[in-house]
């Protein structure tokens, strides 16, 4: 095994096929970047789901004196509230926690949320009304609460935050599916391109490989330079893709998104490094696999 000889062959091969090498590196870089972005978005969504679903509540809003609903006859009475509280209590363990928000608390929260806006000044505690804030052990089963309390005497309406979040997450899921779909298509293109490049390289060096065969070079020795070429190109491409991920994390997340959305947890560096390892392994693995399959067909030994 003569490492210097093999390395020389690899270097010559890459240099002689420079344009194809560049095409290979760029394609690998783009497809791996897309894949990396998709994987990060996926982790981001998972993380956000965990964070938000932990906080979502079902709100049972009680009638105020202005309510128009059929179930309302003026503001909810003390008896109605007591009945509702008992019923909620009976629904354990699905109902994990119940918090009664008074009209004053709702008003305060409203003022804080819309501070500086004219709406905040015009609203009074009586407009906002009281509510039961119900925390569920399983947020997906909110419909049980909705059907049990919607239309009950004293209940104006039942609001589920998860429904709102679900729309957001459906959007994010869709985006992530598109990114992963494109990445997958790009990976297929990459594999085909690696195969084609290897075929070209094998053809342009058929003189050398023919002589190698005749003088009794082993299959390993003949194919190794080609294999290493595609692996080196894949490694370059993967490094570019990892740089792109790091760039996304630094610019998009750390500098731009994180200051603007303070209550949202964003993916950390550990996710970035994990994804990077996946990208490098996948890039190199796929390139090597594509090369081996092509060489088996076009480099008869």
């Amino acid at each position: 095994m003569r490492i210097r000889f093999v390395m020389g062959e690899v270097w010559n091969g890459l240099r002689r096929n420079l344009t194809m090498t560049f095409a290979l590196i760029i394609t690998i870089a783009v497809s791996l970047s897309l894949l990396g972005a998709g994987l990060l978005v996926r982790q981001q969504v998972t993380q956000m789901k965990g964070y938000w679903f932990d906080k979502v509540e079902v709100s049972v809003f009680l009638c105020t004196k202005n309510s128009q609903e059929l179930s309302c006859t003026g503001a909810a009475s003390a008896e109605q509230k007591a009945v509702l509280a008992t019923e909620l209590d009976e629904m354990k363990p699905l109902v994990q926690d119940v918090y009664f928000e008074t009209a004053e608390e709702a008003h305060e929260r409203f003022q804080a949320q819309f501070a500086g806006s004219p709406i905040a000044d015009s609203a009074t505690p009586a407009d906002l009304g009281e509510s039961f804030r119900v925390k569920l052990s399983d947020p997906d089963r909110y419909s049980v609460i909705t059907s049990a309390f919607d239309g009950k005497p004293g209940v104006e309406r039942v609001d589920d935050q998860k429904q709102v979040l679900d729309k957001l997450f459906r959007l994010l899921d869709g985006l992530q599916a598109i990114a992963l779909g494109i990445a997958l298509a790009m990976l297929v293109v990459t594999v085909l391109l690696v195969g084609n490049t290897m075929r070209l390289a094998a053809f342009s060096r058929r003189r050398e490989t023919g002589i190698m065969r005749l003088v009794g070079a082993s299959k390993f020795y003949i194919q190794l330079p080609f294999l290493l070429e595609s692996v080196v190109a894949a490694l370059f491409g993967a490094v570019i893709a990892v740089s792109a991920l790091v760039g996304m994390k630094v610019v998009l997340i750390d500098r731009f998104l994180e200051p603007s959305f303070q209550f949202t947890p964003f993916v950390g560096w550990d996710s970035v490094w994990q994804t990077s390892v996946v990208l490098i392994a996948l890039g190199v693995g796929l390139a090597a696999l594509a090369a081996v399959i092509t060489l088996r067909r076009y480099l008869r030994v």
Partner: protein
Amino acid sequence: MIRFDNVTKLYKNQHSPALRDVNVEIERGEFVFLVGPSGSGKSTFLRLCLKEDKATSGTVWVAGKDVGKLPSWRVPQLRRQLGTVFQDFRLLPNKTVAQNVAFALEVIGKPRSHIRRVVPEVLEMVGLEDKMQRMPGELSGGEQQRVAIARAFVNKPNILIADEPTGNLDPNTSIGIMKLLDRINRTGTTVMMATHDAQIVDQVRKRVVELADGIVVRDQARGVYGYAH
């Protein structure tokens, strides 16, 4: 050294076989001409020795091994015992003479010190010691064939297979190449040479195996070329 036992080779999509029931035995150290018109099966004969192709039936023995039963990973080992020379030289145009010869050793993983020692030796033997740093394109046809022979011989093969080595050369140059092959033969290397060159065969008077339509029609110990052409 080489033995063909009832060897038949039928290529795919062809009606008549390239070799039919061929029986030939070549002893260690022999010099054998393989003659016959184009398409008579000479190249097929040589390709079977190198395991470039597999016999349809019969057994090909090379250096004591049944070539047909050799697993593909053992084929390089077989080829290391066989030197090969072709009509078209098959040199690498972007490497010097010395690098061309060294290439044959590099790709089978020989150590650098060994290569540095044997490459000048073999180039001296073929008479090119003063042209080691030239490119093949700067050499005459005869000199290029000497480089090819040096490359085939540098690993000290047991058998040298030459497929029309003088096919592209003028008669005088051809005689030089023949002398070189004869010298290689005298070192104990079995030489098998396919040729069209009647003059050389008649002059050298070595064993002649003649093929016609895939059949051995003559096997003569000190033969002449001897068919109308």
